[in-house]
């Protein structure tokens, strides 16, 4: 029933977006390839690759590479790794990755592409780690690796009846060179023990108990909370701000103007008010006197757009979006015809978690805690606008309280970073 032109247009837009994501993500299969980095054993946990480490007691830590926004990816991608690792899911702990494209490949949430893009690479990550465990056990038992199998967290040598827990050989396995994943045989999906079974989201118990896991829950010692007053018109610039009265408001510690680069998705001009409590910072805005130069955007208005839309609707259609059958003939022969015009306002994304970001600038390094769908893009924007090298910036990917596309933009990340600096 794709006869509603609005529906068709929505689909059209979505397909276009997905295609763009595909191109952007085309590099993933290469990037996400298999991590060959072996870290020195600075912890008792043996690190088999960027995604998998195993403690002597058999606890398996698996890294979840993508931002979690409620789609369940923080649980799902580790399930795929654990499947090919042949781990016991009860012994798997999941850790959210830092944003680090060189270790984890492309990291983003948007377009419903995480599973198709990551399914095979994540299987290979698990298979490479499993192969290292198998070869370590074979060496320990002095038997050919081909005779060693695995069974939910244990290595098995069937003919001699010997078994070893993963934890017992993990340190030895971590010294081995990872195999080329193309040479490894993956599981037959009919043998899957984890994938294909219902596994509950790893963080859901934390949510029902109110534990701090969202971006906005980040609390650092001595941190201040800022509001950022920006021009109500896109493209506007700051002319002048009087801050004396703001600085006298309760709880306010600092107030200053920030020069933007004019990009709405990066940093627009604004006034930052920093206080010990969000409510103080927000209330102090009442004492702020600020003058904006609206620029050409000042001529735009919702009423003006509606008027323009009406005029366009009175003209002949510019593009034919969909024609199914012979509507002219059908309408000419109809007993009754109904005509209507529909209009939609611009939609707000209305994420329930307000846009927010925590930034700590110290000794030329910037550490960021952000609920972003595209942390890598955010990192690039922060580096560009603040003039920092990318490797001076680290980003913690916090759970996201709704995005709906709003958090594909990282303006709040650049704002917080600029204010912190």
């Amino acid at each position, binding site marked *: 029933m794709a006869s509603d032109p609005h529906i068709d247009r929505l689909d059209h837009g979505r397909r276009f977006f997905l295609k763009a994501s595909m191109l952007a993500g085309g590099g993933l299969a290469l990037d996400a390839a298999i991590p060959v980095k072996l870290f020195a054993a600075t912890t008792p946990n043996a690190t088999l690759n960027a995604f998998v480490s195993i403690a002597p007691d058999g606890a398996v830590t698996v890294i979840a590479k993508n931002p979690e926004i409620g*789609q369940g990816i923080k649980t799902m991608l580790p399930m795929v790794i654990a499947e090919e690792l042949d781990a016991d899911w009860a012994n798997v702990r999941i850790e959210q990755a830092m944003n680090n494209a060189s270790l984890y490949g492309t990291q983003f949430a948007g377009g419903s592409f995480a599973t198709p893009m990551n399914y095979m690479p994540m299987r290979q990550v698990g298979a490479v780690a499993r192969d290292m465990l198998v070869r370590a056990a074979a060496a320990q038992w002095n038997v050919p690796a081909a005779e060693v199998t695995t069974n939910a967290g244990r290595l098995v040598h069937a003919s001699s009846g010997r078994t070893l827990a993963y934890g017992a050989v993990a340190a030895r396995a971590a010294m081995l060179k990872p195999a080329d994943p193309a040479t490894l045989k993956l599981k037959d999906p009919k043998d899957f023990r984890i994938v294909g079974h219902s596994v509950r989201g790893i963080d*859901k118990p934390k*949510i029902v108990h*109110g*534990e701090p896991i969202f971006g906005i829950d980040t609390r650092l010692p001595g941190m201040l*909370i800022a509001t950022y007053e920006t021009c109500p018109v896109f493209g506007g610039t700051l002319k002048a701000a009087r801050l004396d009265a703001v600085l006298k408001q309760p709880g306010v510690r600092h107030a200053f103007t920030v020069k933007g680069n004019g990009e709405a998705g990066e940093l627009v001009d604004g006034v930052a008010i920093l206080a010990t409590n969000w*409510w103080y910072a927000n209330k102090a805005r009442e004492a702020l006197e600020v003058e904006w130069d609206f620029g050409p955007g000042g001529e735009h208005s919702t009423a003006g757009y509606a008027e323009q839309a009406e005029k366009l609707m009175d003209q002949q259609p510019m593009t034919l979006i969909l024609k199914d059958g012979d509507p002219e003939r059908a309408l000419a022969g109809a007993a009754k015809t109904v005509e209507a015009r529909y209009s939609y306002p611009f939609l707000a994304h209305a994420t*329930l*978690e307000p846009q927010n970001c925590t930034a700590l600038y110290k000794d030329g390094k910037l550490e960021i805690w952000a609920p972003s769908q595209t942390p890598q893009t955010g990192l690039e924007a922060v580096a560009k606008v603040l003039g920092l090298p990318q490797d001076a910036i680290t980003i913690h990917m916090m759970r996201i*309280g709704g995005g709906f596309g709003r958090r594909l933009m990282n303006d709040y990340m650049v704002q917080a970073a600029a204010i912190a600096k």
Partner: protein
Amino acid sequence: MSYTITVNNRQRTVDVPEDMPLLWLLRDELGLVGTKYGCGIGLCGACTVHIDGVAQRACQIPVGTVGKSRVTTIEAVGESEIGKRVQQAWLDVDVIQCGYCQAGQIMSATALLEENPKPAPDEIDQAMAGNICRCATYNRIREAIQRVSGQPVSFEAQGGGNGL
């Protein structure tokens, strides 16, 4: 102004203006960030807490009006039998998607069930109407409440969006 208020059975003394809403006292003065800031104007329900057992929007309650009332937040709602069962039902039914609204949902659901152990479907809808879920997990929220109340689930639960 110095206030001593009872939060989760603990006396907390704070020095804040009387018109500071309870929400920012909890989040930014006491560090109890489980209570969520959503809209700040009493429209979304994310900041729901119990004041003497009644569900209230913390962003609309000035500190100066709390007095000797007992404030309970999501961090301690599981200390009551009903609250604990509601939390478990939320997990059993797998209600949560992005999860940002769910602290408020759980607080509203618990207050409802404390007062009305067997709410009818329309009573559930009425009690929960002020709690917005942007991922649209409403059907599962109703199912979880019906499970806690020992009533049959009145319709097939359906999924919502995926937060993207």
